[in-house]
């Protein structure tokens, strides 16, 4: 079963409640997504750790059920209200 954009967003939000999340269905096939995740929880962490936090939020579905998730992570710009 492929994941829907809403499934992906709620899984990430459960782990990173403050996150701003934008999911794009790249191919319109429910199988190739891009996600942009902005969270203060990423502060001070290298990119690899930031991505791992998102992958962990997806609970092992990344690379299996969820084939392709192009991921961009960042921290909120100073003064931004998350």
């Amino acid at each position, binding site marked *: 079963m492929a994941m829907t954009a809403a499934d992906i967003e709620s899984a990430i939000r459960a782990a990173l409640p403050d996150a701003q999340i934008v999911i794009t269905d790249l191919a319109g096939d429910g199988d190739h997504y891009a996600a942009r995740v902005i969270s203060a929880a990423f502060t001070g962490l290298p*990119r*690899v750790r930031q*991505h*791992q936090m998102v992958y962990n939020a997806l609970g092992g579905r*990344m690379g299996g059920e969820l084939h*392709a998730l192009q991921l961009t992570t960042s921290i909120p710009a100073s003064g931004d209200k998350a």
Partner: protein
Amino acid sequence: MTDPVQARIATLVGNNDVVLFMKGTPLFPQCGFSSTAVQILERLAVGYESVDVLSDPEVRAGIKTYSDWPTVPQLYIKGEFVGGSDIMMEMYSSGELDAMLDELGVARED
């Protein structure tokens, strides 16, 4: 490391300055993300060892636990895990990857 597959991966990563675990080969990548990774390394004119996980199911499974990273491609420079294709693309675009190769003294091809 007692697991022979993890030991084999450690040897590959330890014996080569730049290693790309990918699906397919640089000439015939079998996945868009692996293809992106190859193109970035070619643009940076860096010599690298590639490992086709599709022809090696043990490494395909083992590489996911080696760096706690669920997907392929995976790039290693001087023994360190750098990231997957998204991170490679970000670091390439910002010039960080180029700078990192210089900093670590990785040889380039002309």
